[in-house]
């Protein structure tokens, strides 16, 4: 039976490996003669690690003199051994020391000859440019502006495609749209219900303690009803959607971009926005009010549990909730949630389509989708707050 290599076994094997046999001796000749260094043994990573700094110090110490390095006793030399010899040559060159390497076996000599120190001195021009601070700031500002411009362009493309699809319902891939509706809606219900219930429970509990001092626990119902329906329900659900669906869309479309599937669509004459983005965003917008309603409902149940434990009957609590909120509060919240879902899923798709490069681009686009999604939610929530206030909603 084959033995599985566990980290413990590996450690044991490493410890049991024979110690590298390499030795460095110095022999000084008559005055004026070069300093003679003799290296024997195996010049591999373990061996060179033992002597590298020591031999560097010796060669650097002979400033302007001569060093004769005898390597005829070296029985094995790999990349690290060659690197050490090259390093010594570089060091000797810099301190005007005459270094001669004697007795290097032919095969190792060929390895050494493959590398030219001047190669390292003139690195290939890098495409990455190092800029000074003002230029960096300018470039960053231009990137942000470019990003905003892309976003505006994308929203335009999305709505153009959406109207195209609304005018020709057959152009929408309904099978995909239903799949995404299930994925963003039904499949997310467990986490929505859990978070909703816990948020209701915790908010009710935390607010019940100070309100109890004034004998006003019953107003926990008002607090919960208003805050969940108008604000927290849409906000928290949208944040969950950003983490769950926005990132998934970004990763999915990012992978398609990296695998050239998006290019394949374009060269088939198919519009990626209509084909990939519209079904995703449309289904998310369709299911969002439903999952927000679930969130609100279970948040109120969570609050109800606290109220019942404080001795209030369920009927009293529920009547208080119903009396404290209006239909406008709920519809306003649901409208906000539809806009939020458009934002988080739209930005998820956009980040996916913008992915360039290798597999790390997919991860970056997913991260960027969540971050941009949450920023957009916060910004638009602020706009809605002002708007609703101005409209007296």
């Amino acid at each position, binding site marked *: 039976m084959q033995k599985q290599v566990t980290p413990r076994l590996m450690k044991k094997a490493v410890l049991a490996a024979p110690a590298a046999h390499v030795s460095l001796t110095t022999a000084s000749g008559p005055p004026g003669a070069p300093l003679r260094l003799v290296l024997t043994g195996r010049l591999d990573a373990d061996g060179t690690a033992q002597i590298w700094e020591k031999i560097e110090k010796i060669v650097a110490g002979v400033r302007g003199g001569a060093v004769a390095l005898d390597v005829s006793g070296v029985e094995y030399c790999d990349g690290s051994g060659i690197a050490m010899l090259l390093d010594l040559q570089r060091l000797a060159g810099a301190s005007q020391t005459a270094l001669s390497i004697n007795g290097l076996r032919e095969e190792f000599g060929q390895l050494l000859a493959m590398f030219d120190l001047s190669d390292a001195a003139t690195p290939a021009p890098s*495409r990455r440019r190092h800029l000074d601070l003002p230029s960096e700031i300018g470039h960053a500002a231009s990137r942000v502006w470019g990003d905003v411009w892309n976003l505006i362009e994308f929203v335009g493309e999305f709505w153009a495609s959406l109207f195209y699809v609304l005018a020709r319902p057959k152009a929408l891939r309904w099978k995909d749209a239903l799949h995404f509706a299930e994925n963003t809606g039904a499949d997310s219900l467990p986490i929505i219900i859990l978070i909703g219930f816990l948020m209701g429970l915790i908010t009710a509990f935390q607010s019940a303690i100070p309100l109890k001092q004034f004998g006003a626990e019953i107003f926990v119902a008002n607090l919960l009803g208003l805050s969940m329906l108008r604000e927290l329900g849409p906000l928290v659900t949208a944040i969950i959607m950003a983490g769950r669906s926005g990132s998934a869309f970004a990763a999915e479309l990012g992978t*398609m971009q990296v*695998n*050239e*599937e998006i*290019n*394949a669509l*374009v*060269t*088939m*004459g*198919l519009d990626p926005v209509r084909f990939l983005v519209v079904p995703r965003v449309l289904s998310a917008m369709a299911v969002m009010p439903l999952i927000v309603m679930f969130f609100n409902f279970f948040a109120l149940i969570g609050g109800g549990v606290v109220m019942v434990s404080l001795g209030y009957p369920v009927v009293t609590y529920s009547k208080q909730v119903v009396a404290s909120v209006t239909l406008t509060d709920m519809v306003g919240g649901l409208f906000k949630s539809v806009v939020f879902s458009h934002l988080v899923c739209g930005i998820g798709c956009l980040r996916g389509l913008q992915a360039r490069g290798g597999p790390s681009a997919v991860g970056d686009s997913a991260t960027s989708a969540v971050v941009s999604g949450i920023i957009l939610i916060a910004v638009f929530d602020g706009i809605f707050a002002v708007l609703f206030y101005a409209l007296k909603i």
Partner: protein
Amino acid sequence: MNPAHDKPIIEVTGLTAGYGEDIILRDISFQVYPGEVFCILGGSGCGKSTLMKQMIGLYHPSSGKISLDGEDIVTAEGRMRKNILRKIGVTYQSGALFGSMTLKENIKLPLEEFTKLPHDAMDLIASMKLKLVGLTGFGDHLPAELSGGMQKRAAIARAMALDPRILFLDEPLAGLDPITSAGLDALILSLAKNLGITFVVVTHELPSIYAIADRVIMLDKGHIAAQGAPGELREKSDNVWVRAFFNRLSPQEQHQQSGTP
């Protein structure tokens, strides 16, 4: 195919292109004639794939003209662009099949979008295309369930869904074993011969070039270093680098032959 008499199906004139400030291709001009298997060759990073992406309209060149079957893809927009794209099929290095769809669904996708054929007819066409590439019976498989070579063949089947006049293949043999590669080469030759499809193949696989290419262009540092039949270039090119490419010479051997240290 007779270049002297036929009208070219692809005509690239004075193409200069790149990414941002980096110019990758400079003043490229060549023609491809109907029914030809035309290969674009060159070392890694010389701009082969960029040239192909320009030719299929994925990127816009800084200057120059690319005419596919008499129509300029650079300036075409909207419906006209779609009409040009219907005449071409493209397969990418990775195959680029849609992972969530079966092979049949992949092939039916362009048919669903561009034709009003009944579903039975589309099914039949998809089966025919799969048979053409030797994948009968795999219609209900997902791409991930197939080997690399089968995925490449399926990608060719999808690219042929709308019976294009020109097929562009980007590194079709990358990562395939010699037997599968030879099978793909035979497929390309048979499609070119029997269906009259013009092939533009980006590759640097020498055995495949000798097997399939009627004519090649070789790119070096953004320019066309040589063009002609591969056999001729191997023997007669004045360019040392071109001869080295065709004879698989290492840089050291190249220096030895050219007499430079």
